[in-house]
């Protein structure tokens, strides 16, 4: 064993001077920590907590704003859709109306055209009839004159024979119950008869 170890005191007996030195050392550290270090750290913790909370609040506000914007956007979209549907409906109705109108117009037009055509036809017929009547009279008189051998023209014109004959023809046609011009009566032997005729007599 070394001499020093042999001299050394019991390690479990504290030394008063050391106790005082240790106390002072610890109290100095305690004072500094209490006064400066702990408040510094606490301030940093506080600031950090505030920053985090502030950040959360900001984020929440932004989220609320975004949600409001989304709701507004959706409302606008729905409105626009409704409007579009309305416009489409009204356009369809209008189109229908226009078609209807055009159809009516076309029908009127065609009716008018048909009417005019009929009128013209009637007028032409009248004209033709009138012309034919004159020519037929003349031709008939000429023919009769040739048959008789003399000119009857003046005489006939004077007496109105031809006209009378033609009028009679007209009357005959009018008295025919079928009434459709003068073409009908030729089918039967007796004009205007509606009596049943047995097959054997035909």
């Amino acid at each position, binding site marked *: 064993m*070394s001499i020093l*170890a*042999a001299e050394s005191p019991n390690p479990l007996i504290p030394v008063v001077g050391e106790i005082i030195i*240790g106390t002072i050392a*610890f109290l100095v550290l305690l004072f500094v920590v209490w006064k400066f270090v*702990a408040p*510094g750290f606490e301030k940093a913790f506080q600031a950090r907590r505030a920053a985090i909370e502030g950040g959360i609040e900001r984020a929440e506000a932004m989220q609320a704003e975004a949600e409001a914007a989304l709701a507004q956007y959706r409302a606008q979209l729905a409105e626009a859709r409704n409007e579009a549907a309305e416009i489409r409906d009204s356009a369809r109705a209008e189109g229908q109306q226009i078609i209807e109108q055009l159809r009516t117009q076309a029908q009127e037009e065609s009716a008018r055209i048909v009417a005019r055509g009929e009128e013209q036809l009637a007028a032409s017929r009248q004209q033709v009839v009138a012309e034919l009547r004159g020519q037929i009279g003349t031709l008939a008189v000429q023919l009769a004159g040739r048959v008789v051998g003399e000119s009857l023209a003046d005489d006939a014109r004077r007496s109105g024979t031809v006209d009378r004959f033609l009028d009679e023809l007209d009357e005959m046609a009018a008295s025919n119950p079928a009434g459709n011009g003068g073409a009908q009566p030729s089918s039967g032997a007796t004009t205007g008869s509606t009596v049943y005729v047995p097959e054997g007599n035909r």
Partner: protein
Amino acid sequence: MTSSAHALGDVLAVESDPGGGFTPPGVGEFFPETLFGFSVLGIQFDIDRIILALWLATAVILVFLVLAARKAEIVPGRLQFIGESGYSLVRDGIARDVVGPKGLPFAPFLASLFFFILANNALAIIPGIQISPMARFSFPLVLALICWVVYIAVGIKNQGLWPYFRDIMFLPGVPKAAYILVTPLELLQNFIVRPFTLAIRLFANLFAGHMLLVTFALGAVYLFQVGNFSVIFFPLSALMAIVMTFFELLIIFLQAYVFTMLMGTYLNGSVEAAH
């Protein structure tokens, strides 16, 4: 010259005295020679390298904490982060969670305790010093006595003088006959055993740790020096010295934390009405 150097001298002296064998390091390890001494009011102050180490450790941890906390910001720098982590460990882990809801005001005290012990323990493995002031019984005792005063004072302040002692002496819910046994035990436990266990646990861990380190280190030197077949065991002893250094690192943190944690539980008993 350090005490370890003396021990090393003893080991090396084996060569000149082959029959001496290995001289293990003794208690003298912890009592190096006095560098200077003075007397104030009849009290003798002998300053040796261990006390210088205590001052150094205290100064270093103080400067570190002040630098870390001086410009504490929301986004911490490296230094602030390390300081904050240690402070939060004590503040949240012990002051808030162990002492209780009323524990936060004790955070600076507990943090001082933790950092002071940690810094001084750390000297146990810092090259060139390699001995912790906490291996000198006076210093753990100082801390234990301060804790003792604090938790009793806090108990009296929070619960009142008589209720505090009454609750310790006469535990509620214990049969009256049992008080014969329980009351002396509780008094012993609260006012004598607690501070001594605090002090001795810390002291003994660091003391034993240093002894282990020195023994393996000197043993390695001896085995290398002794000049016979023992030299083959030299690497083993050297390796153990290194392994024990890492083990010491664990002890350094653990003992600082355990001391603070136990003080937290004592404060918890003082802050809240017992049981």
